[in-house]
């Protein structure tokens, strides 16, 4: 099952990019390091302090304000965005659209916004292994390549293992700061939080787009059933009672709440994308979610 990212989405993606610019980058906003006397881009002024370099005093401003002001510069740093797209078997589930379809559309939107912001974009997929289908890309001219690749992708057979994927990601990508956007259903909540820990500790600033299927809690009805775990392929012939369903609902809610609590605790931008919501609304919400830098 391939995702259904279309090329006629470009005008809509352009509108999303505009919306992201208006809200200071939205979920992809990054910290602007203000280093006096460092960097090349003028970022502002401040009062002169003893020890400042005389050469940084802006005499025109001093003349206007009648006080000493020094220029402040920011370092122009490359912004690197990595989209970590969950391609495990569980992403093939979901109604009315598959989780992977929504995830691919969100990845397309985020990728386009990142390219619009002149960021270096890399698309990675993970399940029980990490793959890099395309990247790094730079400039909006590569948006077509990104969309083509996303249209080709499909969920695989493996299970979700964000921790292992994050470890491999951190091991092979050393260097400057990067933004990692995890787009996943976060099937294994504890392992997913551990994966986010690995990303944080590796110096990445993770963002989380949680693909949420609200019908997941009601997909099993009481009775004799054959339960198939799509990630492991295991089949169990079981009898489900209402007590089981109640317990399942509680555990599922707990599992779904765990990543949100984690993200709140560590100030990781988190947005929940519900399969039951209109796609445009989900994309707007994802794009406009403010990171702490926005």
């Amino acid at each position: 099952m391939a995702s259904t990212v279309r090329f006629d989405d470009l005008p809509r993606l352009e509108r999303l990019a505009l919306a992201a610019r208006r809200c200071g980058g939205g979920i992809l906003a990054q910290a602007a390091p203000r280093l006096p006397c460092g960097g090349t881009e003028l970022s502002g002024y401040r009062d002169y302090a003893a020890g400042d370099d005389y050469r940084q005093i802006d005499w025109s401003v001093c003349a206007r304000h009648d006080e000493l002001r020094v220029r402040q510069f920011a370092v122009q740093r490359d912004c690197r965005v990595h989209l970590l797209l969950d391609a495990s078997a569980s992403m093939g589930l979901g109604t009315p659209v598959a989780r992977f379809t929504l995830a691919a559309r969100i990845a397309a939107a985020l990728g386009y916004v990142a390219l619009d912001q002149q960021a270096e974009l890399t698309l990675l997929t993970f399940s029980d292994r990490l793959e890099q289908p395309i990247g790094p890309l730079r400039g909006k001219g590569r948006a077509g390549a990104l969309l083509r690749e996303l249209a080709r992708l499909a969920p695989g057979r493996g299970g979700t293992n964000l921790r292992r994927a994050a470890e491999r990601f951190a091991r092979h990508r050393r260097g400057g700061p990067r933004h990692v956007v995890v787009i996943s259903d976060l099937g294994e909540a504890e392992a997913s939080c551990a994966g986010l820990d690995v990303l944080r500790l590796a110096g990445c600033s993770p963002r989380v787009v949680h693909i949420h299927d609200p019908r997941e809690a009601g997909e099993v009805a009481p009775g004799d059933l054959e339960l198939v775990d799509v990630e492991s392929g295991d089949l169990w012939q079981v009898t489900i009672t209402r007590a089981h369903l109640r317990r399942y609902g509680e555990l599922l809610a707990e599992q779904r709440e765990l990543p949100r609590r984690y993200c709140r605790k560590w100030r990781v931008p988190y947005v929940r994308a519900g399969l039951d919501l209109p796609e445009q609304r989900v994309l707007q919400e994802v794009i406009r979610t403010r990171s702490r830098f926005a």
Partner: protein
Amino acid sequence: MIAPAMILIRPAALLWGLAAAAIVLVYLRAIRPGRVEVATGRLWLRILGEPRTSARLWRRRRVRSAAIHMAILGLIVFAAADPCWNRPRTVVLLIDNSLDTAAPGGQANRLDQAKQAAQSVIRSLGEREHGVVISTAGAAVLVCGRQQDRNRLAAAVDRLTAVARPSRMRQAVRVAAELAAPATRLEIHAIGPQYSAGTEQDVRETGRPAGSLGPADQPRARRVAPLWPWAVCTAMLLLALEWFSYHRRWTC
């Protein structure tokens, strides 16, 4: 195993039932419970515990449920075959109405006495039992064909009049031997002065079973008990139990 005293009025229903049972068995074997794909297998493992235990119980329950359903089907088929305790009778009344029976014999003439005896036999007919009335004067005449309606049989007996011809009892016995309804026991009652040991011999020669011969003085009442209501009630009870256990299983 059907008890010897039990008779199936419509045994052909068993064949249809066997065919239905075969179809149901194939169906029960073919149908499988719904298959649900989940992404939360580990959660279910935490809830259900060891899945093999559940699978064993699941199979046991399915076998038990299939057995109960087959039992219900068997009972319905059994009811459709119309089982009865005591095989019902086909009572053939051979009434001698030759002219000599019009002669007085005591207070009433002999024909009236024969009619009274015949009415007594007719009154003893129970549920699912048939009666036939044959007059024997001149030739064996079927006065009233195989009939369960006792009023019609009684009316046919009342209509009999003496005929100035000799009695043909032997011929009547042969005709009577062919008149048994399916799954019933033939009883030939030869009523009249012509009854003799020879008549009994005639009946035996037909190879048909005879419950009673001769002018039945006071035929014993036979009670034919249909068993289908019991079979249907048992099937309903099993169905209710299965339904109750099915719903209780999910709601507990």
